[in-house]
């Protein structure tokens, strides 16, 4: 910890980010520019999320970091160690024990509480970027709440594929005002954002944007009356814990084409197994 500021960032930078966070909370879904700093981790590692976490974290916080639902990837472990070292905070893998959860690409299956904050790492904060490359133009569209371009894209999807073909980063309307990127979470997770009891903060380091969703705020996945949004998932139960309502990853188990569908949220799966739930593959394993 010697030679570091608490949570790495200097106080001046934290104040700047904190002011941006307060504005972001006051204008749900609106991207607030901020003076993103260089972090001792590469951009792909969630420097935006790390700066947000560093600006809110206190000595009493308990931090959980997940990457694609897992606590044990290199990315998640590195970020957890970074804050354990620079802020001396306690860390955990248990969703229920955490006060701050930093995430890349998932929302935990367990319903988050009012006393928790979830921080999303965001690679591309602009939901319109594939449709309109000019930042000046998309800023104008957000100013006017002119989201016709996105509706046209979704409608074309339906015309071409019979459905909206967005599996990740499915655009949402926040508080019926701002079109927002939920970050590359699976569309399966979108409904968890709606009226979530926890405060949701989003940090994009390379793009230098912060945005937020206060607790109990309407978050609506874009859709059409005749093509309502549906959270899609694999039509299997988890092979290890038998869960039928969790987001699953397909895992190749051997070189003979063996496959297993398991919970992407590793803490959720472990907790269910500890409580005695067993999936079909868990039973097979036990029998062998």
């Amino acid at each position, binding site marked *: 910890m010697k030679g570091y*500021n*608490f949570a790495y960032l200097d*106080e*001046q930078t*934290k*104040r*700047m980010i*904190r*002011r*941006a*966070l*307060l*504005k*972001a*909370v*006051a*204008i*749900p879904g*609106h991207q*607030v*520019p901020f003076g993103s700093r260089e972090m001792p981790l590469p951009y792909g590692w969630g420097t935006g999320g790390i700066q947000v976490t560093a*600006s*809110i*974290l*206190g*000595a009493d916080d308990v931090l959980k970091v997940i990457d694609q639902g897992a606590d044990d990837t290199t990315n998640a472990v590195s970020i957890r160690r970074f804050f354990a070292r620079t802020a001396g905070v306690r860390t955990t893998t248990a969703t229920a024990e955490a006060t701050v959860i930093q995430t890349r690409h998932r929302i935990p299956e367990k319903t988050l509480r009012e006393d928790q904050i979830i921080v999303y790492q965001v690679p591309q904060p602009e939901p319109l970027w594939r449709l309109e490359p000019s930042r000046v133009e998309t*800023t*104008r569209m*957000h*100013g*006017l709440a002119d989201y016709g371009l996105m509706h046209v894209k979704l409608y074309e999807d339906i015309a071409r594929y019979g459905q909206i073909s967005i599996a990740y980063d499915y655009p949402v309307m926040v*508080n019926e*005002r*701002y079109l927002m990127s939920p970050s590359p979470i699976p569309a399966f997770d979108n409904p968890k954002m709606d*009226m979530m*009891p926890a*405060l949701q903060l989003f940090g994009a380091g390379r793009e230098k944007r912060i945005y*937020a*969703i*206060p*607790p*109990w*705020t*309407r978050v609506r996945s874009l859709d059409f009356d005749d093509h309502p949004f549906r959270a899609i998932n694999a039509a299997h139960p988890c092979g290890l814990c038998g869960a039928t309502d969790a987001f699953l990853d397909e895992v190749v188990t051997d070189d003979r084409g063996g496959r297993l569908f398991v919970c992407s949220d590793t803490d959720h799966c472990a907790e269910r197994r500890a409580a005695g739930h067993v999936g079909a593959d868990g039973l097979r394993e036990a029998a062998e």
Partner: protein
Amino acid sequence: MIGALTPGFAEPVGGAQSCFRQVLDAMARPGRVYTVGAVAAPAPLSDAAAAVVLTLMDHETPLWLDPEAEAARGWIAFHTGAPITGDPAKSMFALALTHYAMTIWHRLPFGTDEAPQTSATVILHVASLTTGRAFVLEGPGLRSPATLTVDGLPGDFAAVWQRNHALYPCGIDLILCAGNQLAALPRSVAVREG
């Protein structure tokens, strides 16, 4: 002169972090009352207002200071470096001791459609956040309408606020301070008399 100044947070890094989390929670849950930790506030600032000043202000945040709070000018300048401006239109924060000072409200920046975050944040002293008139709040952060009880707001506050809220996503954000307590009203919240 500096010898006469009271200190800021006893522990600057932890003090600012814990106050920020109170303000962040307050902004995320409009009308809920939070208590800030101890700070040696200079007269005539409340502890809550002084803590918010220390937490959010620095040389990048022009401040409009209520002339009645002139006695705190040296303390604010010394601890934060915030440039104090007489022109509300150039301020990022406004610190008002009573609602009389809020005659400058209409001269503060409200933000623009493309950059609504450039509006001012007002820190306003009120007499109490536990007794007084009841206001009903509705909006993001509130699962169902909530009640905020405040003593010391102008008689036409609900109307003034509705005009502010109608500018959404532009508009001013308000932090109310009484003693060591604070509550926030982000522009996103609708307010009516309870």
